[in-house]
């Protein structure tokens, strides 16, 4: 499945990264319209089987591509993503393009504005090619919670692509797009990247504007790129990051500008910590052995790797689900069926309108999280749950800051389990939550982290490795990920 690539003028052109597409379009080797048409054809040919897309933007993408071609013909300097098709997770607002969050609640919602990241992509001449499937309101780890369709893992179509950015990950893994955007509240970029055998970056909280990202857990949510290569993640980050006055949590300090330019530097002397808690019970043995192999490779490149203990790292699950559900219950209170969103056919008064709207249009998992969050915030339980969870969060941040005083990076597996079968875990919410155990502490602490492929299981299923950096440590995260990627040279 993953072997086939889009055809340009009848010939299979293999994988093309951002640099290749951009230089080809800028240099007149092919037009943005040809590239866009080629990927649209690819999506049409493959997506019936994979189910990665909720909306294919054939017309608007063609118009954008035409505008890019005209810009180049008129002699203007093409943008940094000229002609590069990008798939967008369907919780990021696109002006005039349906944005559903994979929910019946927003089935017919057409945003009247673009998210900041969309403005940034378009100002660099990228092509918005489609909107991708996800777990409803980004709540889930398998993309099975979409109200509209199941997305399949292109590596093995009987298995889930991970989630919640499963559509974006599957689209990139199948070669239907070179790059995509996802969002990560507790691992929703990194875990599907690991399951699909691609690269996914969750930037530092605040580095990328959340304006226009439909909120789930506002203190945890972050937009980031998914791609085949570390370099493409770096190039995407250069475009989508930046201070935005429309997001009050936007980072107000200095931004690194040249992530891609640093790739290829030696990692000799880099100090990496491996958390003992990440190799405890519950970790698949094939994943453990593949990650250990990568540790030896990094050592052979001159990095030093120490095993350390960070007791708080193993305890994150309960605080994470308390905080994220509490924030979700508050954020999703806006869906009342009045100003926008699903409105029931019949209702006698305002309470019935709101209750029917929410009960008929939200799916099971979304309702479960709203209930959990409402419970955790309710009178008599607030101190026992929410306040203790916030204390844990502070403790975790302090402990992690202590680790980054001594080390450049933390390394571990992205997921404790291999991609599972569709339907295998969907009946047991707690089992599903447990699969997020390695990724959630990154969001609780607001850190940057990347997942890159580090091997395959005996059955050929992808295994992902996670590198976590200090706040605004994307340069070193990307540099180390690139070094390992080049060393491993995986044929995926």
């Amino acid at each position, binding site marked *: 499945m993953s072997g086939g690539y889009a055809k340009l003028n009848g010939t299979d052109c293999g994988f093309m990264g951002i640099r290749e597409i951009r230089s080809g379009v800028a240099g007149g080797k092919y037009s943005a319209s040809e590239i866009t048409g080629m990927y649209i054809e690819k999506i049409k040919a493959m997506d019936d089987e994979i189910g990665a897309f909720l909306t294919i933007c054939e017309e608007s993408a063609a118009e954008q591509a035409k505008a890019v071609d005209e810009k180049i013909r008129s002699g203007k300097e093409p943008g940094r993503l000229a002609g590069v098709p990008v798939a967008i997770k369907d919780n990021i607002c696109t002006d005039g393009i349906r944005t559903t969050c994979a929910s019946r609640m927003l089935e017919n919602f057409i945003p009247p504005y673009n998210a900041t990241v969309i403005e940034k992509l378009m100002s660099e001449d990228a092509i918005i090619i489609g909107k991708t499937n996800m777990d409803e309101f980004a709540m889930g780890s398998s993309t099975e919670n979409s109200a509209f369709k199941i997305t399949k893992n292109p590596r093995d179509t009987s298995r889930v692509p991970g989630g919640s950015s499963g559509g974006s990950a599957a689209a990139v893994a199948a070669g239907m797009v070179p790059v995509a955007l996802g969002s990560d509240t507790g691992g929703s970029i990194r875990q599907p990247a690991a399951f699909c055998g691609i690269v996914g970056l969750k930037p530092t909280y605040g580095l990328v504007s959340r304006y226009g990202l439909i909120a789930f857990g506002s203190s945890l949510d972050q937009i980031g790129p998914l791609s085949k290569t570390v370099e493409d993640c770096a190039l995407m980050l250069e475009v989508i990051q930046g201070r935005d006055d429309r997001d009050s949590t936007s980072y107000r300090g200095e931004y690194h500008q040249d992530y891609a330019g640093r790739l290829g530097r030696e990692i000799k002397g880099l100090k990496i910590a491996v958390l003992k808690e990440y190799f405890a019970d519950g970790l698949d043995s094939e994943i453990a052995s593949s990650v250990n192999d990568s540790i030896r490779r990094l050592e052979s490149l001159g990095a030093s790797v120490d095993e350390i203990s960070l007791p708080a790292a193993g305890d994150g699950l309960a605080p994470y689900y308390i905080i994220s559900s509490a924030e979700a219950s508050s954020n999703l*209170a806006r869906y009342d069926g009045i100003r*926008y969103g699903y409105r029931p056919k019949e209702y006698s008064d305002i309470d019935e309108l709101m209750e029917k709207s929410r009960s008929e249009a939200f799916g099971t998992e979304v309702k479960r999280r709203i209930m959990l969050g409402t419970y955790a915030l309710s009178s008599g339980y607030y101190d026992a*749950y929410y306040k203790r969870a916030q*204390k844990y969060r502070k403790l975790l941040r302090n402990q992690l800051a202590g680790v980054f005083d001594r080390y450049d990076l933390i390394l571990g597996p992205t997921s404790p389990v291999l991609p599972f079968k569709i339907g295998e875990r969907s009946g047991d919410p707690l089992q599903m939550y447990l699969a997020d155990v390695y990724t959630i502490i990154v969001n609780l602490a607001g850190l940057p982290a990347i997942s890159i492929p580090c091997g395959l299981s005996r059955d050929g299923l992808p295994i992902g490795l996670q590198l976590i950096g200090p706040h605004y440590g994307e340069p070193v995260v990307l540099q180390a990920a690139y070094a390992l990627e080049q060393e491993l040279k995986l044929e995926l």
Partner: protein
Amino acid sequence: MKISKDDVVYIAKLAKLRFSDEEIEKLTVEFESILSHFQSIDRMDLDNVDPDEFADRRESVLRADENVTFGDKEKLFQNAGSMRGTFIQVPRILE
């Protein structure tokens, strides 16, 4: 952690959600299992931690409070369930 069906019904009321008896039954069982896992938070030593997330931030983020007119009103209103003129229509809330 004992959760009763009445607890679940009460939380549903706060959350403005309606459930069938069958769904309430199922949610009660799920809540028990999830909340008993959440009990792990009681075992942590958190007594001396100040939970104020923003205590170490140096400045507040402020912006000027200025009116911005949204350009295309049609685009804004197209998502509303029911309109009358430029007003969003809702059921009567005052008798």
